[in-house]
């Protein structure tokens, strides 16, 4: 069962537990309808997010990655999102080096009370991903092809 063919894109979200995951919950409680594409991975803090998670996802076929944390100054862990902001911005600037559209990755800040903002972010980001072609995939490598023929 893959992403609903033609309807959905593969979008992965990394959300900090305290603010943005709560914001997404608030959006749910408020029944703020959103596109269904996004799948959310919960992490304690945006500072926990290794930029390589994002790159790994994008190289593995994700069409988009969205990271959201507490607003700067409001980090549950005081400083995590400050470090995250620098790392994530670096990551965004590295993406075009491998031919990945930087628009496939966005990071933002949503607090636990901002259900409506979360709806906006998800809706906008999903629309942004739908405007891009599906993510590029690696061609099958020759030996895999060979393996398949053998097996």
């Amino acid at each position: 069962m893959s992403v609903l063919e033609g309807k959905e894109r593969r979008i992965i979200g990394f959300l900090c537990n305290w603010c943005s995951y709560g914001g997404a919950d608030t959006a749910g409680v408020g029944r703020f309808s959103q596109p269904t594409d996004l799948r959310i991975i919960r992490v304690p803090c945006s500072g926990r997010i290794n930029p390589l998670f994002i790159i790994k996802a994008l190289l593995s076929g994700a069409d988009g990655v969205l990271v959201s944390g507490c607003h700067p100054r409001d980090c549950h862990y005081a400083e995590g999102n400050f470090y995250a902001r620098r790392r994530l911005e670096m990551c965004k600037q590295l993406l075009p080096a491998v031919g990945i559209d930087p628009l496939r990755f966005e990071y933002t800040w949503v607090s636990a009370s901002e259900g409506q903002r979360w709806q906006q972010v998800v809706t906008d980001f999903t629309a942004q991903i739908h405007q891009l072609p599906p993510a590029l995939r690696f061609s099958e490598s020759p030996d895999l092809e060979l393996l398949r023929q053998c097996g």
Partner: protein
Amino acid sequence: MRIGVFVCHCGSNIAATVDSAAVAAAARDFDEVVFSTDTMYTCSEPGQTGIIEAIKTHALDGVVVAACSPRMHEPTFRRAVERAGVNRYMVEMANIREHVSWIGKDKEANTNKATELVRMAVEKLRLNRPLFPKTFKATRRVLVIGGGVAGIQTALDCAEAGLEVVMVERESTIGGKMAKLDKTFPTVDCSSCILGPKMVDVAQHPNITLYASAEVEAVSGFVGNFEVTIRKKVTCVDWEKCTGCGLCTEKCPSKKAYNRFDEGVGPTTAINIPFPQAIPKKAVIDKEFCRYFTTGKCGVCAKICPTGAINYEQQEELAQEKVGAIVAATGYDLFDWRAYGEYGAGRYPDVISSLQYERMLSASGPTGGHIKRPSDGKEPKTVVFIQCVGSRDASIGRPYCSGFCCMYTAKQAILTKDHIPDSQSYVFYMDIRAPGKAYDEFTRRAMEEYGAQYVRGRVALIYPKGDKLVVRGTDTLMSSQVEVEADLVVLAAGAEAARNASGLAEKLHISYDTYGFFVEGHPKLRPVETNTAGVFLAGACQGPKDIPSSVAQGSAAAAKVLGLLSKDVLESDPQIAQVTLQRCIGCGKCIRVCPFQAIRETDFRGQRKAEVIEAVCQGCGLCNATCPQGAIQLSHFTDNQVLAEVEALCRC
């Protein structure tokens, strides 16, 4: 691993837009899943029993619950599996309610999404390891920030139960807004008769240490072991010596100081005690008006003071306190209604705020309980009350309802009639919000017994005409414009977050909403908790609240604090960072970024290594993302677990 999957219907909350049975069926094909089912209410008693039985029947050692947000029921299911003998950290939740069923209507897409979230949870669970909390000693003391009625209630409840309480109050007296009120609704009983004895109890209770004229400067540490720095503001009076005799206030030659306690209705002296029942009853010098500071000459109070308490050179002091829990009870501030140009923006002396009116009504207030127009001291006969000033008004950034203005306006209309029997009150309102016990009856009394004329509509303009104020509004029920010539206009100013509430929130690492009110852990499940362990909320700092609700919340917060500190030791959350010594090269990057100084350098057989101080680590994982060789891993959120989640999603 033998994994069981439980997919919740949540009645129709999930099942209406997610095919829970199909999700459960799909989960049977996932690696290591040996049992999968769908249940009506997984969190209910039968639901939890079902999990426990399945664990026993199928020898499960890991459970995935696909239901609501883990922020809601993760603790519930952790306790459930623990009852069945499985480590509580061997549970993962897939959030298929808040993140799926409630935000989309397409059942096919939702079911597919829910299945993928379950697969993701299964893949993460496969890498979960049992975790065991450690215990640490807790300081059995509590800090209460704010000495209004909510904070007083919390402090007294905690102190009575045997906890040591440190109370910090910004003003020179406790009592908060309630101390300024004349009467309270819906009983019209005297505010100070209720609050006064409680204030005295605070002062006299052996377990309570009170810092008035003080603010919280910094907070460090964590639940059970907070270190609080308190800044004692300059009062120019040595409170150790001051007896509160009031001689200085009688003799002070600067008699036109702004009276903060009386909201500027009537002046006070530069050295003053806010009101006779103040706790602590100590004098404070207002430097802005004190002649010693404005002209360099005076010193009358220093000469007169029988105990020699006056100290013009006093400096700020910092005090340190160790506490195990913190309760924020910082209350609210009144909206500054001068934002309304159409109400004169403060140009008309006879347009006043509701709290100013309250001071006028108070027998111990600046007018001795007589209602007088500020402009000419005359008794008003026509009083117009305007509700929703700074409430339900998006144009000034206050779209929320302040909740209590309807009630206090009704009270003030009643008191107006009591004070001036031949007066007529008009109340402009948009809706009457009176949902409390005996509340609506109270507003009806204002209309029926006391003859207040209620007019449904806003007021567009107030302007003076002669010695009257023309109030032009609308009566939407009559569908017409209306005008009243008033002697006095009282604006029911709404509540807003206390000054610099956001600054305190940042110090406490708790969240606040767009308007500066503190955010509770969960509106229903954790109404007085915050998302920061050991920090609780009481009263209007969480949102506008009337006195009964504030007191109830004050007691609720106390109950939570008492529960937390009922034992000498607390269990630490084991979801913290761990160093794999072989992999660590001792570069110290983790030490540099850790916001809690929870990592230190150690020597391990002559090599530099990082070491996590378990009681200090808060489990943010910043170090994990910093370490290039992955030598430091956040338990329960390891690189491999997150990668497994990513791969599970990309594989689909």
